[in-house]
């Protein structure tokens, strides 16, 4: 299992770079991850809304939300999601939010 050092702390990630243990994540790490994945920083309030919503959904349901779910319930529209995370919101936001890769076709 490769380890990454984010915000000075060693974290475990899987082969695709997703967190093995989402509880290791901190907001400082999110900023670093955003830089790594080319999401413009500083992150905006809307970015944070999405990231916290994703983590909340993950801890409640065991899996990150789909883009549709995000668009319907996070308070950020689908259009905005694609502006915030242009390289594909669900997966990219999951990476930055420190949760496992969401699996779903829609």
């Amino acid at each position, binding site marked *: 299992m*490769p*380890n*990454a*050092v*984010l915000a000075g702390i060693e974290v475990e*990630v899987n*082969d*695709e*770079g997703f967190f093995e243990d989402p509880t290791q994540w901190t907001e400082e790490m999110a900023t*670093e991850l955003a830089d*790594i*994945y*080319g999401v413009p920083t500083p992150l905006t309030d809307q970015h944070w809304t999405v990231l916290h919503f994703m983590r909340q959904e993950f801890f409640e349901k065991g899996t990150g939300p789909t*883009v*549709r*779910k995000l*668009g319907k319930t996070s308070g950020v*529209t*689908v*259009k905005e999601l*694609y502006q915030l995370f*242009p*390289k*594909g*919101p*669900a*997966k*990219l936001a999951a*990476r930055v939010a420190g949760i496992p890769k969401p699996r779903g*076709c*829609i």
Partner: protein
Amino acid sequence: MTDTAVFPETKETEDAIKKVSIIVSKGSLEEIYPGLIMANGARAEGIEANLFFTFFGLDAIHKERQDHVKVATVGNPGLHIPTWAGGLPGVSALMTKYMEHQIEELDFPGIAEFVEMISDTGAGVYACLASVDLFGIEEGEMVDFLDGVITVGEFYEMAAGGQIIFT
């Protein structure tokens, strides 16, 4: 400094698909959804996507028809019912209702909502000029977020440099 080697997706790989243009040419529920799922899925992966609706596929972007798309019950061996039974009155409606129920259970969007969501993801949504002329469809009958009614030549120009998927 973070070692980015453990984050493999920060590197662009050469064989990664970067752009898809998906043609939806048929008008039954089971033939419209796959194209929509592929377009939406492409955008979710950060792949550029265009949807091109032609012939009966135009029903998916026809305001009055898009939420009344039916499952084809005749000549559809995948349904595992005899062809003669598929043609009986009400069978298509019943099958459609069943399928719609399943789709809702999975929390998948209906066609109208789905196409609009795909447009919101930044995908292009286009209608085929020849088909629009053939069926006598007015531009106002189609969804408001339509990006244009285009010719096949314009479609190829738009699809340049990417993959074309015909459904």
